[in-house]
């Protein structure tokens, strides 16, 4: 019983892949055929097969971001058949397997599309805007050393669990890609919620949310219109509830703070 189904037959597929030389050049869809794709392959292993073929023929392989291939690093980011990370719910591109496709299928593969995520090359995009949002306040301002014993900060289990759920965001950007406004609200709210829920984050609660939201706007992400496609397409199930928490945090900060941002 190697893999799921020893009788599953290899597939032949047509790929429509976005190719773009660099940030400034114009891109377009190019068609490729791949043969004998095993249903047990991951989607990225299927692209490896294509790239090895291209390279052997002296053509440039398709650039795409990936690394851990375990669904946790957040590098991979393909828009497959019109959906962020493809057809399987709650799954990163690297964890999507070819058994979700059928022989003869045509698969369209595009990069994340958002003004705040410029394309580097082909399917690779620049998500450094996310880093800058975290730099604006996604932390507790403590230095190394001099911290109290870990058990001196008891936290109710349900609160700790909710903070953990929010903290599991992998920063892939699927929420932005899935949103018709290219809003980063789900990403920002996940970090704001995690730290707003925990006592460690309370001290900087107001400045954090103000600064992070201001940076988000500065980066050119769109506004949130509460459609919810971000949460629907999030590969790790970050809840829409976080956006409600963010809005609440933001309003209460704005109502009472010095309006830093």
């Amino acid at each position, binding site marked *: 019983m*190697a893999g799921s*189904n020893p009788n599953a037959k290899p597939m032949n597929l047509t790929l429509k892949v976005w190719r773009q*030389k660099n940030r400034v050049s114009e891109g377009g869809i190019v068609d490729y055929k791949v043969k004998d794709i095993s249903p047990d392959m991951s989607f990225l292993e299927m692209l490896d097969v294509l790239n090895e073929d291209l390279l*052997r023929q002296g053509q440039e392989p398709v650039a795409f971001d990936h690394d851990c291939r375990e669904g946790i690093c*957040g590098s991979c980011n393909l828009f497959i058949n019109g959906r962020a990370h493809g057809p399987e719910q709650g799954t990163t591109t690297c964890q999507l397997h070819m058994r979700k496709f059928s022989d003869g299928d045509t698969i369209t593969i595009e990069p994340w599309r958002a003004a705040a995520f410029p394309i580097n090359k082909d399917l690779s995009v620049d998500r450094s805007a996310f880093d800058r949002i975290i730099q604006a306040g996604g932390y507790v301002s*403590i230095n190394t050393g001099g*911290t109290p014993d*870990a058990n001196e900060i008891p936290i*109710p289990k349900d609160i700790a669990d909710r903070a953990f759920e929010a*903290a599991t965001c992998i920063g892939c950007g699927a929420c932005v890609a899935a949103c018709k406004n290219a809003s980063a609200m789900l990403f920002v709210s996940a970090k704001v919620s995690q730290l707003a829920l925990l006592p460690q984050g309370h001290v900087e609660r107001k400045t954090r949310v103000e600064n992070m939201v201001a940076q988000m706007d500065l980066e050119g992400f769109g506004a949130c219109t509460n459609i919810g496609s971000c949460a629907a397409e999030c590969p790790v199930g970050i809840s829409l509830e976080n956006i409600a928490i963010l809005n609440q945090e933001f309003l209460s900060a704005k109502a009472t703070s010095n309006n830093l941002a």
Partner: protein
Amino acid sequence: MVLDSKLPEGPIAEKWEKHKFNVKLVNPSNKRKYDIIVVGTGLAGASAAASLAELGYNVKAFTYHDSPRRAHSIAAQGGINAAKNYQNDGDSIYRLFYDTVKGGDYRSREANVYRLAQVSVNIIDQCVAQGVPFAREYGGLLANRSFGGAQVSRTFYARGQTGQQLLLGAYSALSRQVAYGKVKLYTRSEMLDLVTVDGQARGIITRNLLTGEIEQHAAHAVVLATGGYGNVFFLSTNAMYCNATAAWRAHKKGAYFANPCFTQIHPTCIPVSGDYQSKLTLMSESLRNDGRVWVPATKETAERLRKGEIDVNDIQEDDRDYFLERKYPAFGNLVPRDVASRNAKQMCDEGKGVGSTGLAVYLDFADVIKRTSAEAVSQKYGNLFDMYAKITGENPYERPMRIYPAVHYTMGGLWVDYNLQTTVKGLYATGECNFSDHGANRLGASALMQGLADGYFVIPYTIGDYLASTPPKPVTTEDPAFAEATAAVQARVQQMMSINGTRTPDDFHKKLGNLMWEYCGMSRNAEGLRFAKQEIAKLRQEFWSDLKLAGTETEMNQALEKAGRVADFLELGELMVDDALDRNESCGGHFREEYQTPEGEALRNDDDYAYVAAWEYMGDNQPEKLNKEELTFENVKLTQRSYK
């Protein structure tokens, strides 16, 4: 050169305290006059960069990823050890120290390990203060679980994604310093060489992975936190980009490479499913708390199972061999990784393996699901079970997982002294990149502990000792050494681009990986190692005459990046083989078939091999020179490791 490990004098429990008092300090107003380069932004790098910047140094942090948060520490699943003794179950700093030295099969430095156990408790405090959401009990206090090689519960965890939460904690501390302007962050920048001036590390040469530009960076000291070299084997649980290039370049500039043959094969990974396999996925060791490892009791049953004549759930209790529980009643399924891996291999070699390839054993959760519930199991291991289901298409709640050992971690690495300084002055190595704490085998939940110990609590103290003796004058890239190193890097890139052969970087990498796994993997013998050495040398020649690349070097070119890394693996692989040949004993992850006990356990030779093998680069195509650091054990008695 005589290796001086700079171990402090005195009783083991006092060494670190004394040393912290004896090291020189840089006064606060002088710290801003020093620049420090940190390469790598995983646990060891991000924690070091943040902590050094907090102290006032100017830090430049480099990563080849698009963001520091992508470093492979993020994928660590199970947990982090700390001698908190919150469980009141007999843990202590001494016990964590003892377990780690024993677990490492007595090939690590006592003083380093003791320090690691000491600072382990501070790490948990630090991470909790950052807002790392560790698992908690209903009373609001931290929860623990047990891990292999220990009989106490000392592992702190955040479901099955502890590494992610710890890295995001370190990343947040790093981000804060970036915002303050104390860390300058260079993403998508790969270190391709170390620059030394008068024998001291003075900077690095990097390639901008988006533009191909070769860049020079100067500093008063360089910290390498660039991870391990498990991807020499092609297939491993490492991420695709993990590589040895930064460490290997430093090695060629004078940093000794220690114990390269000490690699860890993790017992519980999802087995290979086909030739296209690009990497292997770990199923956390924590699963062995509740999962039971077994194979069919007879070869005949195993054969029928492989042919699909019977189903795994049809096999009765009597026809199952829970071989770890049978052979090691005291530790059972929680024996250390090297022992669990070798036993799984042995079962498969005896023809009792499962899956269509016969290269797998079962990890079964039926008992715990019956005892508690599927929901309780999901609470604990949900994300791992989901991952298994996605990759294999099988439901682990209904059928036992199939697992097989895979390369996971490298205990070897750059040789460092007690200060974590390499044999190149001003060059430091932290985390998996160095060799110092895990001996010949690393215990579970110790990698996260070591990476953060080095970065948060060791390097901030020890690097000052070196800087205090270096004048606080600005450093520049004007020294000719920078131009020379840059020219060499450019020449190498152009050479690879111009070969225009027929074979891709992955093609060479896979061949190398097969050789390493076959002859320098879970078990090794002299004959096989000598054969592998010849074959690797041949493969290296073929690489430099038949490599195929496309595109140009002045743009994003992932095949070119890969080629450079494979070229270095082809050199490091040979050194690993040399090291394995030199070590005529079995210890931890290094199992030489010639040296085993009658029961098939690793047979150490403490009289002749209780040393760290530190290899010195002697020039291209020259054999490397072996330098030995004798290990002395004043606190732990060397015994045959027994988990029975």
